[in-house]
Structures are given as C-alpha cells and as structure tokens.
C-alpha cells in the first residue's frame, strides 16, 4: 500500500512541477520583453515591446526601419531629402508625407499665433547651436534670418509645396520626431503588437499597457537632479522640452535653443514643459509652441484643447499643472 501511495505522490509532484514549468515557459513566451536601441534623429531611440518573441522582434525591427526612413526623408542635411532640394534649389515638394506634416505644422502655427515655425534650423545655425560653440549673435544677424521665415511665401496647392521667395528655407525638426513615432506605432500595431514603449531621446509614446500594469514614465526636473515625479499611462505620447537641453550662459543669462519666432531670441518664462496627448505629432509640435507661448497663455490654451495635458516648470521654479493632471503625478519618494 505504502508503495502505491509513494507512486501516486510522485506522479502528483511530477504533474505539478511540469505544469508550473509549462506555465512559466508559456508566460515568458507571451510576455517576452523585446528591447532595441538605435541611434537616429540626432539622439537614441529605444523601443520596448511585450509579446511573443517572434512577433515583437520582427515588429520592433520594422518600426525602427520605418523611423530611420522618416528620419532620412525629413533630415534637411541629407542631400537626398526633398527638403534639401527645396531649400537649396527651390525644387517644389510633392512627397505626400512631407506635405501632410507641413500642413500639420502650419495648422499648429496658426492655432498658436505664430509660436511654432518651420525654419528653426536657420535660427539654431545663427546662434551656433549646430556647431561646437554657441554664441550670442548680433541683432542684425537675427533679423536677417527672421526675414526668411515668412509664411506668406509658402504655398501648398494641388498637393505640391512651393515657395515664392527663393531664400525661404524650411525644416520640420519640431514635428518630425512626433511623426516618426506615430509611424512606428502604426507599424507595431500592424504587426500585432499591443504593448510597447517608444523612447525617442526622452520623447515617449506608450502603446497599451505593460502586461497587467500601466507604463511608468518619469518626468525630469529642469533644474534639479531629482525627478518631478512619474505618470502612469497607456496609449499616450508624453513629450518634453526644456532650456536645459542645449544652452550657454553669457553674463549670467541663459541662452537656450528654443526660440521665439517673433523675436529670434530664446523664449523666456519656462524652464521645462511636458505635454501629454494621444497623438505624438500633436504632442511634439505643441510642446515647442507652448514653451514659446509661456506659462500663462500656454496653460490657458491647453485648457481649451481636448485631450491635452501639461506640466510646466517656470524659470522661477514653480510647477504648473493643467486641470486634468493635478492629481496624476506620482511622487518620486516612492521610488527611492
């Protein structure tokens, strides 16, 4: 009898162990975390995707490829880009992707009373933010650049972008990253990924949830080493801008790389902004526009935009929240 019982117990143990291992293998297959990093768009891009390895590794590869494709097309320094030909030879653009993004950029420009512009790179260049040594340019230099940012010299007609003044140059730096992220999300979804996170140099899109919980995204404090806190999100783009990314200090004054298109000088009032919106393109373009508009006007406008939320830190160190976000920010003390 005892022998029989031992056998039964042995079988039971074996079943339990094999069963649990099967569950473990199944789970690690189902909840495999694929992670890939590539350097592009003048920064890094990391994509995390949760799901069966076969699905996620292919999806992440394709999403990365797509982002590199967008990067190449929208890079004004790439001689093969239609933007390069437009800027240097005046060749009109009929590429539907570029037309769409230019259209979106013009819409944001209109809605933000000119706080968002296409030719930021001309200003970056005159301020030396492209090279090794940024500098304070003379007034006349800035005015000369501003002359060539006139929107009335751009025309979109019959899905073709033309310019009526030769010297006009455009670049889509303030919106192209959002577009690249949007395209990557499309690829991931098409390939069957329902859970992913794209981190493009600190601009983040969270697709679905991370397994059973929400994605946790920290927010940088523009002045300190600590974080402001973190948000738990799904299906949202969270993008940041700040005067800490590229800047120099002269005579005690900080000059950074986000310019007010009306003056040609760095926008004042905010040290950093985080913008949250379901659409990464909207998030990318508006976070620059709102940074330029400043805290009062910016917050008021966010209140009128459906689905848009923001956290702003002023140059005096005050943190401002849009109404829908007040209680959403989790404190970082829980982390450390």
């Amino acid at each position, binding site marked *: *009898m*005892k022998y*029989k*019982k*031992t056998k039964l*117990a042995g079988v*039971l*143990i074996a079943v*339990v*162990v094999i069963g*649990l*291992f099967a*569950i*473990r293998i199944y*789970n690690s297959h189902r909840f495999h975390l694929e992670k*890939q*990093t*590539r*350097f592009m768009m*003048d*920064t*890094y891009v*990391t994509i*995390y995707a949760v799901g069966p390895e076969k699905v996620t590794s292919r999806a992440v590869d394709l999403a990365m490829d797509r982002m590199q494709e967008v990067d190449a097309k929208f890079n004004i320094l790439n001689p093969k880009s239609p933007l390069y030909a437009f800027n240097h030879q005046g060749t009109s653009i009929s590429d539907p992707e570029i037309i769409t993004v230019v259209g979106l950029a013009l819409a944001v420009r209109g809605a933000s009373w000119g706080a968002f512009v296409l030719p930021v790179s001309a200003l970056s260049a005159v301020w030396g933010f492209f*090279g*090794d040594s940024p500098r304070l340019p003379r007034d006349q230099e800035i005015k000369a650049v501003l002359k060539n940012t006139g929107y009335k010299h751009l025309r979109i007609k019959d899905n073709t972008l033309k310019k009526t003044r030769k010297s006009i140059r455009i670049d889509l730096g303030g919106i192209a990253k959002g577009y690249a992220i949007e395209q990557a999300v499309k690829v991931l979804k098409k390939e069957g990924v329902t859970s992913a*996170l794209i*981190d493009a*140099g*600190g*601009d*983040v899109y*969270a697709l679905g949830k*991370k397994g059973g919980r929400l*994605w*946790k*995204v*920290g*927010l*940088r404090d523009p002045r300190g*080493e*600590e*974080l402001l806190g*973190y948000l738990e999100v799904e299906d949202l783009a*969270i*993008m*940041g801008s*700040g005067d*800490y*990314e*590229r800047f120099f200090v002269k005579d005690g004054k900080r000059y950074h790389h986000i310019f007010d298109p009306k003056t040609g000088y760095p926008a004042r009032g905010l040290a950093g902004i*985080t913008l949250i919106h379901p659409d990464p393109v909207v998030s990318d373009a508006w976070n620059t526009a709102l940074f330029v508009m400043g805290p009062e006007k910016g917050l008021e406008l966010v209140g009128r935009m459906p689905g848009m939320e923001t956290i702003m830190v002023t140059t005096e160190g005050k943190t401002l929240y849009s109404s829908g976000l007040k209680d959403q920010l*989790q404190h*970082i003390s*829980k*982390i*450390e």
Partner: protein
Amino acid sequence: MKRDNPAGKESFYRLTPFDVVLIVLILFVSTGVILFTELGLNWQLSETSEAVVYHEGKLLEHLSLDKDREITLLEGKMILEIKDERIRVKKSDCPRQICVSRGWIKSSGQVIVCVPNKILIEIKKPAAPLLDAVVS
C-alpha cells in the same frame, strides 16, 4: 477475479505519518516552483543599483553604483564618474559635449546619451516602482 478488498481500500485512505510527510513535500515543492515562476523576475531586480552602458545598442558594461570610481570607455574617448550612487560623463571627446552637460543621473529609467560616440547609459534600480522611461 479478486477485486480490491475493503480492508485494503480503507488502509489506502487512512492517513499515516508517512502520508503527512508526502503532503508536506508536495506542498513544499509546489510552493517553491510557484515562487520561482512568479517571483523569478523580482529576484533579478533585487540586485543593487547599477548603471548599464550600451554601445551601438549592444550591452557594454554593468556598473554597480555602490563604489565611487571612474571608468574609462572606448579606449579613453569617454570617462564616466560614479559618486554617491550617481553617475555622470566626466569627459568625452565629442564636439558638442551634450553628454557632459547632462550632469548626474540617479533615478531608474534616466539616461545619458552621447550620439557621436553611440553610447547610452541607463540607470537600473532594484526598488519598485521601476520607471520605464524618463521624459526630458
């Protein structure tokens, strides 16, 4: 043909000390396996804080943040410094010095990137909640 005798059946269902040992063993093994499968991830996370350095997207080094020191990367192109459980790029040969001006990082999910050198430094901390990314 003789079927199971009633006496034998009875003894089969009677609990003996040996059975108790078996039941405890089964429970023990099952619990152990469940813990192993469910909490395996947490065991991995309960290591000390570290910075993970990637070069061209590939893992280059795991650096524990416990000990203050300097680390030379890419044959001296970059020097990292670890101090008070924080890490920064102390020196880099890149033109714009964006990685150096980024300063110290210490929270999980924070990164320093040097595009010219294709270096990414990421903080990993054991304690939950672990951040998936940091917007900056």
